């Protein structure tokens, strides 16, 4: 079932949690809401579920408005960050709960719960209480419980947030495989971009109650829509400067900026990802700025070099391939030139 979110607004006191937000989730898609804390992603999820009422706007499931219908009538599966399993019920009863409250006949209920236990591979633990399970097992039970009544949409609130790194990795891949099997329209909230990019068909980047960008992981990574997205994705070096007439000058780096042909001078910010910076012993005519090598961290697939450009008071992070690193023979304290292979310039709004 598709989900359509239209012009949602939500305030908590004076805090604007959602600001006229619109989003379309086609049927069968797995979408991630990604953003810093306070960006409104969990509020959006809870309003889609019906756990929270919006101040304005509408939510539609499969084209039918559900804004005013209660959560229990929406037939959603909601997975909570801290599982919220019923502590006094065993695994079987937890998964059976949505079927019991719907008064399913016993044989049908039994068959459905067994099917789900197979799906989450916990058949041998059906008599265990939640307190006897590991975090990963609990979250699988919570997922099976949410799926038991065959919901039209599956909503997950930071589903792996409370798990350790290794289990999180396994569950991510498992969730992706599960989604390919059952194809239920799913929305999940996360603040972990790696998780969002790995699991989701499309990623929604949120900030201050608004959507900054929606796209496939590749689109977002390759074409960040604005400075916020670029910065949020992280691992970037930031250069501040000015732009006019299609030319930008950022910390002495002169680069073309065809997106801004106007003559009026504006503030601009340039972003270069760590792996898009090169280190040169001698200048080769390309834009470059002098910097001192501060620290070298080789304990990775790439060599992480930290530098400092004294002229601009600018710390820089560069990822070098091992080949390039052994070619350069860098030592801490040396003076070198740092040159961007690719620089993205975002012109700041005139009104600030």
């Amino acid at each position, binding site marked *: 079932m598709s989900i359509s979110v239209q012009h949602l607004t939500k305030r908590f006191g004076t805090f604007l949690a959602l600001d006229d937000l619109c989003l379309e989730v086609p049927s069968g898609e797995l979408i991630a809401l990604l953003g810093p804390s306070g960006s409104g992603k969990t509020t959006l999820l809870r309003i889609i579920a019906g*756990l929270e009422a919006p101040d304005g706007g509408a939510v539609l499931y499969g084209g039918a408005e559900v804004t005013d219908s209660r*959560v*229990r009538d929406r037939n959603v599966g909601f997975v909570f960050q*801290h599982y919220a399993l019923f502590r006094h019920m065993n695994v079987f009863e937890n998964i059976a*709960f949505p079927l019991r*409250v719907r008064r399913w006949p016993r044989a049908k209920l039994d068959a459905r719960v067994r099917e789900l236990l197979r799906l989450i591979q916990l058949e041998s633990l059906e008599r265990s209480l939640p307190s006897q399970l590991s975090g990963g097992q*609990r979250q699988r039970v919570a997922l099976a419980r949410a799926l038991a*009544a065959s919901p039209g949409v599956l909503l997950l609130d930071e589903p792996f947030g409370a*798990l350790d790194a290794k289990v999180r990795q396994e569950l991510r891949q498992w969730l992706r495989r599960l989604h390919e099997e059952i194809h239920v329209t799913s929305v999940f909230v996360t603040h972990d971009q790696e998780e969002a990019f790995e699991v989701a068909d499309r990623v929604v980047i949120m900030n201050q109650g608004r959507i900054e960008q929606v796209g496939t992981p590749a689109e977002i990574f390759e074409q960040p829509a604005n400075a916020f997205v670029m910065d949020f994705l992280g691992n970037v070096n930031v250069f501040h400067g000015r732009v006019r007439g299609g030319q930008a000058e950022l910390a002495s780096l002169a680069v073309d900026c065809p997106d801004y042909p106007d003559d009026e001078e504006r503030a601009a910010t340039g972003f270069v990802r760590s792996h898009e910076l090169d280190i040169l012993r001698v200048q080769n005519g390309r834009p470059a700025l002098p910097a001192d090598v501060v620290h070298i961290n080789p304990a990775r697939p790439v060599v992480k070099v930290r530098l400092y450009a004294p002229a601009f008071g600018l710390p820089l992070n560069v990822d070098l391939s091992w080949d390039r690193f052994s070619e350069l023979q860098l030592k801490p304290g040396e003076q070198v030139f740092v040159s961007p292979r690719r620089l993205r310039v975002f012109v700041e709004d005139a009104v600030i």
Partner: protein
Amino acid sequence: MSEPTISRALHDPPLVRVTLILAALAIMGVLIVIPLVSVFYQAFANGVDAYVQSLVGNADTLHAIRLTLVVAPIAVVANLVFGVAAAWAIARFRFPGRTLLTALIDLPFAVSPVVVGLFLVLIFGLQGYLGPWLREHDMAVIFALPGLVLATAFVTFPVVARELIPVLEAVGAEEEVAAVSLGARGWQVLWRVTLPNVKWGILYGVILCNARAMGEFGAVAVVSGRITGETDTMPLRVEKLFQEYDLPGAFAVASVLASLAVVTLVVKTALEWKTRRDLAATAREATATGHP
């Protein structure tokens, strides 16, 4: 996980420690242990046969025991229903007047039971607001069973709610929200999720409420009229036997009430131990999975 202990360096000098412990033990002994033991000692002073005889051989005493066994359960059931409803409302919802409701629940603990009794007489007594109407319809509240139940229920009203509010708050609303999201209606959430999670708190509240109900004296004394063989409950009977210099009889009934107190304390301790263990288990899980 071991209990936190105070390191040796932080201990007070031995003399101070021993003095404090002895003082505490002495106060305990004088105020609690000696009276409790002497109640049983006096009750059994003339042997077990005399003890049994003074309980079942006296028709009025037997009636008082039976009356208490009728009044207390009715009051407990009423307070169970009100207590669960009030505790749920206070622990789960924020509404105007919530603080006032919390304060009102405690009112019966703050008011002298005698005042409560007078208050009931003022409403239901013959000269009271509802007295004439009740008499017209041939109903009696004061000097009758309904008055005893009302007085007992009023005085013990806070017990269940006060036990339950902290338990409900500790358990949290997350499972209830999950139940609603899974399609459960209000009653289903209450029966299948909320009540099973707080069952030990409820049981403890009921036991404590029952103990208070059976031992209630002041309010019941006022509304009962203290008619021997009709409206005397156990505590009233104890006092009456004592006034009549029937010490073996008075102590026999008193010992039954005292036993109830001991049983209540044992059950309370067992339940607290169990609740603490459950909460500790939950806390351990929380730490193990890394959420706060």
